[in-house]
């Protein structure tokens, strides 16, 4: 099967324009639950096999192959749980909410397929707390699906297949998007990440049992994959980044939007500049920088525009596709303020568990705030970098970390990017009396 033309490539956003696509009637009318019916005709292991064949990469941020992740459950340990990560909170990211609001049954169907394939006997659908509309759309869809026999006891009449889906919702904490923190939160605790290893959810997850944590978009792909085959999915996109992906392009672009595009072949230039996508810069403006994969990602510049939206390529170029959030900044942008904004986000969202993140991110925010207030000192720019180094030794990509989870190191990305490229803009904020000579001292002696 050859790759379809881009216009045909609405796999998971295909119902976004269907008025009643979120209802069971609308969903069934447009081919809904065919994937589930197909899956139930197959052996569970074969369904898993299709997902492996599809090479479906996780759409949450880390981009790990879902089929491989599924294989990490220790054999013979039951029960196993499915936890759906719908806690979409990464600044710039905006796709899971639409998938939940506009096509909730597609997600439910994806959950059922995953449960069937892996023997997961209960699913918890964790939706971000602030997404009231998504919660009610999912609640309504689940209520319909339960009554129609798709979910719950004896799915589609099968004597041997029963799965419950419990709709759960958060209460405002970005870190809960991290899968081990998500599990802590689902257990009624503070969303503080656990160390991996040993707490890989697939082996020690919810209630200490094997748990598959998948992103909303990842699961939303399953109905199509099972209906059309893993090979057909793998034929789309590039060799290593298969299928389609949904990207939100926001910031200083003419027509910001959420676009489903072939994964791995579309370039940044296309998605930012093509009229069918974000339509380029606002009139009279030029590109200054862009964040390719959510606030945690190191920034990209003009020279990165022709890179494809492909995981490996972007990784090798020193950043990540992350959660599919492209934030574009034009020449009007005050990068110090932008940098402060992103760092403030991480400082505010640090869970407080690891010392370097808890203390370091808020220190970085304070230093940046002081610089913005005109009270910077010449040594502050090197201090910023050294504090960054103590959170993420070496300030490399992929980041090393002195913390359990990547939140702390994420705050390093904007500082490292902005300071490297736009140091003069930081220096411009220093008071005129401050001598703009900096040293590269380490820890003060």
């Amino acid at each position, binding site marked *: 099967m050859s790759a379809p033309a881009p216009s045909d490539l609405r796999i998971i956003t295909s119902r976004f324009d269907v008025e009643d696509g979120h209802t069971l009637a609308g969903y069934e009318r447009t081919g809904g639950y065919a994937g589930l019916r197909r899956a139930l005709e197959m052996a569970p292991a*074969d369904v898993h096999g299709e997902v492996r064949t599809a090479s479906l990469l996780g759409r949450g941020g880390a981009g790990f192959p879902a089929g491989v992740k599924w294989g990490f459950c220790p054999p013979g340990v*039951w029960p196993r749980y499915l936890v759906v990560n719908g806690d979409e909170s990464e600044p710039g*990211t905006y796709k899971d909410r639409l998938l939940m609001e506009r096509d909730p049954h597609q997600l439910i169907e994806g959950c059922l397929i995953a449960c069937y394939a892996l023997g997961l006997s209960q699913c918890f659908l964790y939706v971000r707390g602030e997404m009231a509309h998504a919660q009610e759309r999912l609640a309504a869809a689940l209520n319909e699906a339960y009554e129609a026999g798709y979910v719950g006891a*004896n799915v589609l009449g099968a004597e041997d297949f029963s799965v419950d889906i*419990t709709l759960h*919702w958060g209460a*405002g904490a970005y870190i809960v998007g991290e899968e081990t923190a998500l599990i802590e939160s689902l257990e009624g605790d503070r969303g503080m990440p656990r160390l991996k290893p040993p707490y890989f959810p697939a082996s020690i997850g919810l209630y*200490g049992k094997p748990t598959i944590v998948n992103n909303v978009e990842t699961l939303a792909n399953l109905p199509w994959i099972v209906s059309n085959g893993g090979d057909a999915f793998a034929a789309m996109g590039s060799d290593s980044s298969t299928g389609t992906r949904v990207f939100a392009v926001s910031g200083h672009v003419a027509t910001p939007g959420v676009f489903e595009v072939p994964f791995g072949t579309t370039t940044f230039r296309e998605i930012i500049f093509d009229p069918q996508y974000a339509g380029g810069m606002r009139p009279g403006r030029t590109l200054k920088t862009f964040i390719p994969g959510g606030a945690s990602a190191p920034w990209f510049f003009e020279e990165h525009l022709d890179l494809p939206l492909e995981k490996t390529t972007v990784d090798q170029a020193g950043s990540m596709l992350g959660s599919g959030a492209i934030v574009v*900044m034009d020449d009007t*942008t005050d990068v110090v303020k932008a940098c402060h904004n992103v760092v403030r986000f991480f400082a505010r969202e640090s869970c407080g568990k690891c010392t370097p993140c808890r203390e370091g991110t808020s220190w970085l925010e304070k230093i940046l705030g002081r610089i913005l207030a005109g009270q910077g000192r010449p040594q502050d720019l090197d201090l910023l970098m050294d504090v960054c180094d103590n959170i993420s030794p070496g300030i490399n990509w992929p980041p090393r970390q002195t913390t359990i989870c990547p939140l702390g190191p994420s705050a390093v990305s904007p500082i490292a990017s902005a300071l490297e490229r736009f140091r003069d803009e930081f220096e411009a904020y220093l008071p005129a009396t401050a001598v703009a000579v900096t040293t590269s001292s380490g820890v003060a002696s």
Partner: protein
Amino acid sequence: MARLNSNSLAIAQEIIGRYPVPRSALIPLLHLAQEQDGYVAEDAMAHIAELVEVTPAEVMGTCSFYEMLKREPVGDYMVNICNGISCHLLGASALIHHAEDTLGVKPGGTTDDGKITLEAVECIAACTEAPCLQVNYRYRNQVTTEDFDQLVADLRADAAGVAPHGQLAKVRQHVSEDRWAGVSPPHGQGEPAWMARNPSDNGDGS
């Protein structure tokens, strides 16, 4: 303000019943308390502690971690202006300043009439609609200062079509008893029955 009333309690019991371990219902129950009283009262936390078999201090530990759960009364309407990076680039600061001037409060403050609590919040996932805000977690997109002023007028007149603070989804999950398969407790479970299904001809089972 108080413990959960009988109506909330019935909902709480149904929610708890959907989890293998009662403590998992903690956050949904805290939302429920907030729906009842507009905020999470201490008595409600103590009541929830009893329901999910933890100490009130543990409930407080969880409750205080999450920004949406307010432990002091807030206005009828939480106006959360997004200050995420995308909104920041498109005028969030100006909108926040405008809101401060209009409402006469800083972020975190509540207007004297008790109607509106203003907050500047992190990204609320409407980045292509910047600058945006939420009123009691309902979106307002591409908000101009004029839009904001109209919104404030509507809220003061309770004419914005937004439920009072505390209510999230207007539809709750509800499963009839005969459709519920039964929670999967973490212990004493074997391999699910369907995993024994034989591989079919068209799959290699790998």
